[in-house]
């Protein structure tokens, strides 16, 4: 391979590529420290300040710029993401567990589940609201119609994660438990579940973050009360101010906090194995 030329060229290219991925966000982060309330969402920076962060939390004196309507939306989004996470993970674990056996129509069921992540949100959203609005005749809410649409979207992710984990699972450990007189249900609780727990954690993380950030399905299916992405979308049509940038930085930090919690939980669940492996090295 002519890696002497190709590799450095591509290395520079990849650096530019990553800049392309991150660039807009850096600009957004810089502008979130724009002076307020007169400073607009563009360069140059009049003066560095944390005004828009204080504005976000309502610590600034009232001005012509209304605070972002995110308080209640945040609570709704967190609740919805939590509900979705639990439901999608439970469904995902159950379906993946069933997939360990052979049964008729397995391929069909697989595609049915995976379809949920492949169909664009605009279609699921439209269909769900049609069903609720024109057929059943119920009002749409974030906790009802939007919730089921979120699960349709996140359940396939949880399912695929669990399928990957269970594919590598050693069945004989469960059989050993049965042979010791332990019922399948208790075996699942005492053997299978502890061993697949890291996978369950990943499935939960997937479901939570996907639901928390979900926009197109929610737009159609949530009715009057807005979730966080809807609140952000609402500000798009009116004039934007750097407070939305500050908010973007905050939500990103929140995501990283969530990711850290996941990382810590993962580390804890594998730490014992690592520790013992080290002890063995010493012995």
């Amino acid at each position, binding site marked *: 391979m002519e890696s002497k030329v190709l590799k450095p060229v591509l290395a520079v290219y*990849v650096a530019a590529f990553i800049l392309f991925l991150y660039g807009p966000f850096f600009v*957004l982060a810089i502008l979130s420290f724009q002076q307020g309330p007169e400073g607009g969402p563009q360069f140059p920076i009049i003066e560095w300040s944390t005004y828009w962060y204080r504005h976000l939390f309502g610590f600034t004196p009232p001005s012509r710029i209304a605070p972002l309507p995110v308080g209640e939306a945040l609570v709704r989004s967190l609740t919805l993401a939590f509900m979705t996470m639990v439901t999608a993970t439970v469904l995902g674990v159950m379906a993946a567990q069933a997939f360990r056996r052979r049964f008729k129509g397995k391929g069909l069921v697989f595609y049915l589940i995976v379809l*949920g992540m492949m169909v664009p949100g605009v279609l699921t959203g439209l*269909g769900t609201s049609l069903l609720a609005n024109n057929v059943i005749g119920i009002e749409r809410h974030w906790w009802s119609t939007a919730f089921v649409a979120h699960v349709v979207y996140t359940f396939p992710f949880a399912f695929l994660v669990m399928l990957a984990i269970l594919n590598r699972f050693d069945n004989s450990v469960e059989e050993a438990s049965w042979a010791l007189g332990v019922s399948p249900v208790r075996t699942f609780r005492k053997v299978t579940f502890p061993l697949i727990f890291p996978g369950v954690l990943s499935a939960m993380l997937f479901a939570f973050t996907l639901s928390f950030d979900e926009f197109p399905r929610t737009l159609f299916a949530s009715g009057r009360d807005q979730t966080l992405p809807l609140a952000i979308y609402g500000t798009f049509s009116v004039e934007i101010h750097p407070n939305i940038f500050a908010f973007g930085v905050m939500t990103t930090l929140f995501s990283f906090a969530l990711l850290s919690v996941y990382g810590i939980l993962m580390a804890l669940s594998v730490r014992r194995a690592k520790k013992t492996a080290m002890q063995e090295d010493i012995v």
Partner: protein
Amino acid sequence: MTVDTIRNNRQKSFSQLLLAPGVFWMLLFLVAPIVMIIYVSFWTQTTFSINSTLTLASWKNFFSSEAYVGALWTTLRLWLIVLSLTFIIGYPAALFVGLLVKSKTLATVLLVLCVIPFWTSFLIRVLAWRPMLGKEGAINIILQKLGLINTPIEALLFSELSVVIGMTQIYVVFMVGPIAFMLGRIDRNIIEAARDLGAGFGRIFWKIIFPLSLPGVVVGAIFVSVMVLGEFATSGALSGRKVNLLGNIIVTQVGSLKWAMASVVGVILTFLLAVVVAGFLRIVDLKSEL
């Protein structure tokens, strides 16, 4: 015999019990809604209400309206442009990460770097392009500072170009991931052997590397296509309502309670997706490749 069947049935029914909730959920909240879209597209729409008398009115309406058919072409055009761009921009990056980087750690770090932006809200990522592309945005300032232009380029924002840029940046990672994965699985010995036989890089690339990475390209293309065809937020936020995709039409129609027309567009979009995905799956038999 009877005892066995009872026993097998019990196992079977336990399996079904585990599967039933998920399957019902998907049938009820995924399949039924899509069937509903098809059904409602034939309903009769009046100004303020809709009733289930079947008619082709909405369909005729769609195909006789320049704006609607135009949206269909815009959607197809944007899809082709973004798909090509994600491939052209993404492939070299995937080639570097998946094949040229020797250290596994570095490859992982680079992939993680590509994924991290996804933990920022999708809408914020779209919005971040505004201060970047605007008249007083970062790109115009930089270009002016470099002396390349005198007056800021206004066409950067609120145009089809800004939508293309935004979508490419957001979706390119879905192209890079699958390709890098397939490239990572190539046995390096094959490439070494080809080189020992005197093949140059170009030849090795077209004869070995590219064919082996094709399943990754197809998976990436399916991801990108599904997402771009169903888009409406990026075009809404970055085009200043100048670019109308099928998704935007659905949103406006639902907003004005024109359910039948929204459904017609929904059916067209579903059909488009089915054709595109089926077409890609014909290129490569994914089941045998993955």
